[in-house]
């Protein structure tokens, strides 16, 4: 399986994502330059964390116009797997590939710390192998998920909410919600399930040296799903 990691100007977690899929999980990986349109036959695209185009405007607002994003959108429309992490999630909402928006954190500050996530839907291609909870650090200033009531109702009804902020034991509480996200939402998929956006960084907890390595299950899940899909 081959991963493509997009490098926008200002992306800064592109090497982290590359390292994890290539060196920790042993997959093929390549960088996709923002000015290019060639997706290099990848099977899964990761939009990494960082500050695309400086994020001096709304986060992700400029990146949606770059040539590679247009190709990513086409790839997603054809059912390709796309994972947006942190700034990548923001880009996916700006590009209309995922509903809702990410607002400034309720405490108005950048927050970097471990977040415990409860897996709200274990039947997506991204979570089939995940345990009930995973730990993935957050590192963002604008990670407060918001959507209008109707959209939120649809996301919940269609089980598109995949991860929620929780205590370590999996209990969803207000205290465990670091940024004020509605319904403690940390990650959602599109209706089809092939596009996942999440504010926490699973790549930062994919090795036992750096934590309990539970973030790796998200990558293992998508590798598993891809291989199942090609077999079917």
């Amino acid at each position, binding site marked *: 399986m081959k991963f493509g990691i997009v490098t926008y*100007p200002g992306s800064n977690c592109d090497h982290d994502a590359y390292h994890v899929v290539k060196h920790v999980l042993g997959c093929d990986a390549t960088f996709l330059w923002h000015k290019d349109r060639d997706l290099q036959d990848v099977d899964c695209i990761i939009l990494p964390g960082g*500050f695309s185009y*400086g994020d001096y405007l709304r986060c992700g607002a400029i990146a949606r116009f770059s040539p590679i994003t247009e190709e990513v959108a086409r790839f997603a429309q054809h059912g390709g797997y796309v994972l947006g992490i942190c700034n990548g999630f923001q880009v996916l909402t700006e590009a209309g590939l995922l509903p809702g928006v990410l607002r400034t954190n309720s405490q108005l500050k950048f927050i970097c710390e471990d977040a415990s996530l409860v897996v709200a839907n274990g039947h997506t291609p991204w979570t089939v192998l995940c345990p009930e909870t995973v730990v993935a*650090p957050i590192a963002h200033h604008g990670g407060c998920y918001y959507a209008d009531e109707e959209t939120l109702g649809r996301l919940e009804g269609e089980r598109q909410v995949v991860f929620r902020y929780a205590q370590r034991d999996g209990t969803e509480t207000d205290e465990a919600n*670091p940024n004020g996200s509605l319904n403690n939402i940390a990650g959602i998929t599109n209706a089809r399930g092939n596009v996942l956006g999440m504010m926490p*960084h699973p790549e930062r907890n994919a090795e036992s040296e750096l934590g309990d390595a539970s973030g790796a299950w998200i990558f293992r899940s998508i590798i598993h799903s891809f291989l199942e899909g090609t077999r079917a």
Partner: protein
Amino acid sequence: MSTIAPRPGDPEINDALVREHGLSDDEYASVLRILGREPTYTELGVFSVMWSEHCSYKTSRIHLKTFPTDGPRVLQGPGENAGVIGIGDGLGICFKMESHNHPSFIEPYQGAATGVGGILRDVFTMNARPIALLNSLRFGRPEHPKTRHLVEGVVAGIAGYGNCMGVPTVGGEVAFHGCYDGNNLVNAMCVGVVEEDRIFRGIAAGPGNPVLYVGSRTGRDGIHGATMASDSFVEGEEGNRPTVQVGDPYTEKLLLEACLELMKEDSVVAIQDMGAAGLTSSSVEMAGRGGTGLRLHVDRIPRREDGMTPYECLLSESQERMLIVAAKGREDDVRQIFTKWDLEAVVVGTVTDDGMWTIVEDGVEVASIPVGPLTDEAPEYDRPRAEPADLAARQAQPELPAVGDCNEVLLQLLASPTIADKRWVWRQYDHMVRLNTLVRPGAADAAVLRVPDTEKAIAVSADCNQIHVKADPYEGAQGVIAEAARNVACVGAEPIAVTDCLNFGNPERPEVMWEFERAVTGLGDGLRALGVPVVSGNVSLYNETDATSIHPTPTIGMVGLLESRDDAVGMGLPADGGELVLLGSPRPSLGASAYAIVCHGVEQGAPPKVHWNEEKALLAVLHEGIRRRFIRAAHDAADGGLAVALAEMAITGGRNPDVGPGQGCEVNLAANPDPIARELSLFGETQGCAWAVVPTSHLADLLALSQELGCMARHCGRIGGDRIVVTDAHQTRAIDLSLAEARAAWEGGFCASVGLPQPPVRD
């Protein structure tokens, strides 16, 4: 000598203008002698910044020469953009610390942000990939009306720049003291990794080679920043806004990637960032090191606004700019890479062999200065020094009555803002990006980072106890070195090199100069005793407001090496238990201690002395004990003495080496039960001591190792329960505190003192 006509529109040179440029009569006489004529306005500006304290080190140089800077591991010592220390595997650690004190007081967010930007450029200009940032911050009293604003602005500025760059901010320190009320300190340190045979330097060589300007355009911001940094503050004159630069971390991220990509090839001869004094100092220094000349066409400099004079272009401190000397004919290779990263790269001049630094505007020479004299004949002063009249009073041992309730003392110390948990601060810093952070902020005495593509790790720490240094600059400075070394040893590393950032008051006051000389000597003697070199550094003088100088604050950034990254430990008590061993011989002193200040409001007394033989034995036991897996966690005694160190291990325990929910313990300190003697042994500050956690099965091994290496070691107690209990010689409980209570004091102290909302309690 060439004659240069005054540029139309430039001010006329007169005594008042010379004085305004901060040049003394003697210095101006040297200018006239070097040029053989009166300088142009542009040249006057150039001499002013090049000979400013900030750029020329004219006051400090004579003392800095005494630092040990050699050693088998040194790949690049002081004098370049940053120093480099070898760690084997063909790799070097490139690092430096620098101050941005004055700008951060005037405009805390941008001042701190551009401080981070500047130190990053110093490191990546050497072809090192930055892997970590640290900072050392000093603010005034928490209750001072300006403090909260400054804390919020400085922390947000550091976060804003470092986070966007994708370089983790992994450690540092924050302390408060009234001496910083009108002059806070922001010292930023950057650490990078470089291949030892691919270190790039700023040496302009090869006459005929083109000089390229890359990065952001030049604006009018920061003109005379270096001169401002070489002067004192007067209350009410903070309105100097035009001299504070504005940072653009996004452009710097592009510049970082473009420069590192460029240096993979051989099209670059020399590269240097434009920091203080901008284009002037970068070009003059490169020519100075190369023994060459430069001819620069100032009209080709990309500008942000019209109508800028050569004076303004040369002295601007606009951020995110670099100067590159390319190999002749390779200009397009350079341009291609910068274009890829959407950056400008413009040929602005050439290297010459005439030894002259010549500036041309529209074909007309506006400045022409011989490089050698401009750099080599910069003034050097041996300023008068005088022992402060109040020195004996500072060092007199204070008479302190016993508080009596040691639980209460411990809670007060844990809640004091200098000791309390700094989570509010480091939560705002991305401290994990790049996936190297093995031991995170708050979890140990030093941060630990894996070195990519190796089995190794480095430990990094930034330290200074300015209370100790003020009381006795020589002994206090030795203590700074000892503490920095202990901090990296407590995570399992061997100290290998330091950078320094020497923050002092007005050097024209003989007592400040005396403090400077004593502190520099203390640092040097300490480093020689340890066998650790200085590879880079920075001096910040004139930290004075309304005639009051700050405490002498010589901050040290220490780098330690772990041959195997699996060895790294934290400071938290492990949940699965173990024995507590006190390593070293405590010589506690309540003079100049946090206890005296926090509990009695007294800042007086001699600081604890370093006994280097014992200190080195302790470092050896920590290093070897951790390497052999005898020691599972360690923490040195510093502010607040042995009791505070123990409490911090308990509060952060449970998930070693990460910060956990806490873990109790019970130890016996064999302290004299007389109340003041008891408080002395619990809260007195000492050098040369650390707590170590050892599994019961290895207790005998650690005690034997300590004996072998000549370090005192005493088994004092064990991990267990949910209380912190310390008994004395009569087995009376001197301290008996629930973890929850201790934790609440420690976690809440910082925000409560400064008046900030406390982050939610961690799970």
